[in-house]
C-alpha cells in the first residue's frame, strides 16, 4: 500500500511535549518529545496501553487541546483550534440524542451553513454505512455498532483531510468491531482519506494500518514505528499477520520488563 502513496507529508508532529497538573499540584508529563510524520492517504494506528498519552496526542492534532511545546503542522500550517478539516470520532460515538440519525449526520453541514447544497449527500452516507431505513430513528433506538457508523459518517461528510479515530470500536463486541473495521477500509479505499486511529487492540491495528506507532507510558513516548507491508484486505490468520503480532507482543513485554523488573521471573 505504501508503494502507491505519493510520499507527501500531510501532517508533521515536531518535538511535542504536554504536561498536565494533577489535583495535588504536581506536574505530570503525558507526552514527551513526540515526533511523527503522516503521509497523505496513510492509515496510522497509535497503539499503547491506557495512560500512554495516545488520546492526548490525538486531541492535540484535533485542536481540542492546546499544544504547549513543539508544533503540529497540517499541510504546513500550524494547528490552531478545531477545524472541520480534521474530523474526529469519539470513543462513545457521542451522537446527539435529540437529533435523528439523519440530522446527526447533517449536523456538521448545518453548523458550517453548507447544508442546502449538500443535502443529497446525507442520504448517500446513510446508504453507505448500511443504515437505510433508520433515517428518522433517534440514537437510543439503534445499536452501539450502528451509532459508531453514524459517528464515522458524521465526521466524514465534512470531507476532512484527516480523520482522527479515538478508540471508536473499543466498546463493541468483536463481530460488530470487525464489520466496522471493514467499513473503515472501504471508506478509505473510496475516499483516500488519511486516518489516524488510537487503539489498544493489536489485531485491530494490524488489520487496518500501514504503520503502527507504538507508545509507552510515563511519560508518553513513541517507542517504535512498525511498517506493515501487506495488501488489503488482510487475512487475520496470515503468516505476516501472526509474525507482526508476535513482534508487537514482544515489544510490549520488553517495555514492561525494562520499566518494572520486579514483575519479571
Amino acid at each position: 500500500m505504501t508503494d502507491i502513496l505519493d510520499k507527501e507529508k500531510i501532517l508533521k508532529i515536531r518535538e511535542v511535549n504536554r504536561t498536565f497538573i494533577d489535583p495535588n499540584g504536581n506536574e505530570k508529563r503525558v507526552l514527551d518529545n513526540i515526533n511523527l510524520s503522516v503521509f497523505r492517504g496513510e492509515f496510522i494506528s497509535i497503539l499503547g496501553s491506557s495512560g500512554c498519552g495516545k488520546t492526548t496526542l490525538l486531541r492535540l492534532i484535533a485542536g481540542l487541546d492546546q499544544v504547549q511545546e513543539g508544533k503540529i503542522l497540517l499541510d504546513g500550517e500550524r494547528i490552531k483550534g478545531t477545524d472541520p478539516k480534521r474530523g474526529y470520532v469519539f470513543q462513545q460515538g457521542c451522537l446527539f440524542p435529540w437529533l435523528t440519525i439523519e440530522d446527526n449526520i447533517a449536523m456538521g453541514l448545518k453548523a458550517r451553513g453548507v447544508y442546502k447544497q449538500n443535502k443529497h449527500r446525507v442520504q448517500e452516507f446513510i446508504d453507505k454505512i448500511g443504515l437505510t431505513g433508520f433515517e428518522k430513528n433517534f440514537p437510543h433506538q439503534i445499536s452501539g455498532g450502528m451509532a459508531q457508523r453514524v459517528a464515522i459518517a458524521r465526521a466524514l461528510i465534512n470531507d476532512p483531510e484527516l480523520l482522527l479515530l479515538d478508540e471508536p470500536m473499543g466498546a463493541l463486541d468483536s463481530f460488530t468491531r470487525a464489520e466496522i473495521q471493514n467499513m473503515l477500509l472501504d471508506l478509505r479505499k473510496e475516499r483516500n482519506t488519511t486516518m489516524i486511529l488510537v487503539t489498544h487492540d493489536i489485531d485491530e491495528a494490524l488489520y487496518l494500518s500501514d504503520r503502527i506507532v507504538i507508545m509507552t507510558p510515563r511519560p508518553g513516548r513513541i517507542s517504535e514505528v512498525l511498517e506493515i507491508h501487506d495488501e488489503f484486505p488482510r487475512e487475520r490468520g496470515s503468516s505476516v499477520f501472526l509474525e507482526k503480532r508476535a513482534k508487537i507482543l514482544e515489544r510490549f513485554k520488553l517495555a514492561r520488563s525494562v520499566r518494572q523488573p520486579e514483575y519479571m521471573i
Partner: protein
Amino acid sequence: MNLILTLTGFILAILVNLFFPQVAEGVKLKSYTIGGFAIDDNLAYRLVLLAIALYYGIYRLVLFVKKANQEKIDKFGSRAKFRFAIGIALALWDLLGTKLLVLPQPFFPGPAVIMDAFLGDMAFIWKNTLYSLRLFLSGFVTGVVVGIATGVLIGWYPRVRYWITPVLNISGVIPAVAWMPFALTLFPTSFSAATFLIAICSWFPVATMTAEGVQSTPKAQFEVARTFGAGQFYQVFHVAIPHAMPRIFTGITTAAAFSFTTLVMAEMMGQPGGLGYYINTSKVWSAYYKVFAAIIVMAVLFTVILKAVDAVQNYVLRWQKGVVR
C-alpha cells in the same frame, strides 16, 4: 366488568337525584330556559353526571374499536373502583347537601345548588374565566421566556452566574404575592402588576432548571460540535439548549403550578376580574355555591393547561427513551 363498575357509580348518583324525594325544605332550586329548553338545577346536575358516564363509556368503546394496547385498557380498568367511589360520593353529597340538608348551610351546598351558579351566572363566570386565562398566559409565558433566557445566560457565562444566581435564589424563597404592594405602585394597571407577579414566580424555577441543564451538558458534546467548526452561538442553540430541554420542562411544569397559586391570590387581592375575584365577590354575598362553582372551573382550567404543557413536552422530548411511540 370494569366499565360496568365505572358507570354504576354515576348511574346510581343519577337515580338518587331522580327518585329520592326532596325531604328538606328551604332549598331554593330554580329553573331556567336555555335555548328553548326548560332546565332546572337537578336536571343540569343529572346531565353532567350523564355526560361523565357517557364520556367513560365512549372512551372505553373507542379503546375497543381501535384495538388499543393492553396497557391503556388496564389503565382504564385500574381506575374503575375509584370512579365508582366518586359516583357514590356524589350520591351521598346530593343526599346530605340537598335532599336531607344535613350539611351546614350555606357553606356546603349540594351539587344541584352548585349547578345553579353555572345556570344562572354562566355569562359572568365565563367572563371571569377568560380574564384568568388571559392573565395567566401573559404572566406565565413572559416568565417562561425570560426564565429560559436567564437560565441559558447563567449556564453559559460564569460571570452572569456569579451576579445573577444569588438574586435568583433570593427571589425563589420569597412568595411572589409578597411583592404585591410594590407591583401595584410600580405598574400602571393592576393587570400588568399581576402579570409581573406571575412572571416572577414562573421565572425562578424555569431559570434554575435551564441553568442546571445547560451546565450539565457533557463536555464531549460541545467538542463534537467544535470539530464540526461550530461557533459559540451554534453550540448554545444546538447543543446546550436541546440538552437542557428535559430539565427546562421540569421547570415549566413547576412554574405552571406556582403560577396558578399566584394568579388566584393576585386576583383575590385586587383584580377587576378573574376567578379569584369571582370567589371574593361571591363570598361577600355568602353565595358559597358560587365559590364552589369557581373552584370547579379552576380545577378544570388548570387541568387543561397542565395537559397542554404535557402535550408540548411529549412532542418536544419525543427523542427521549420511553417517550417515543
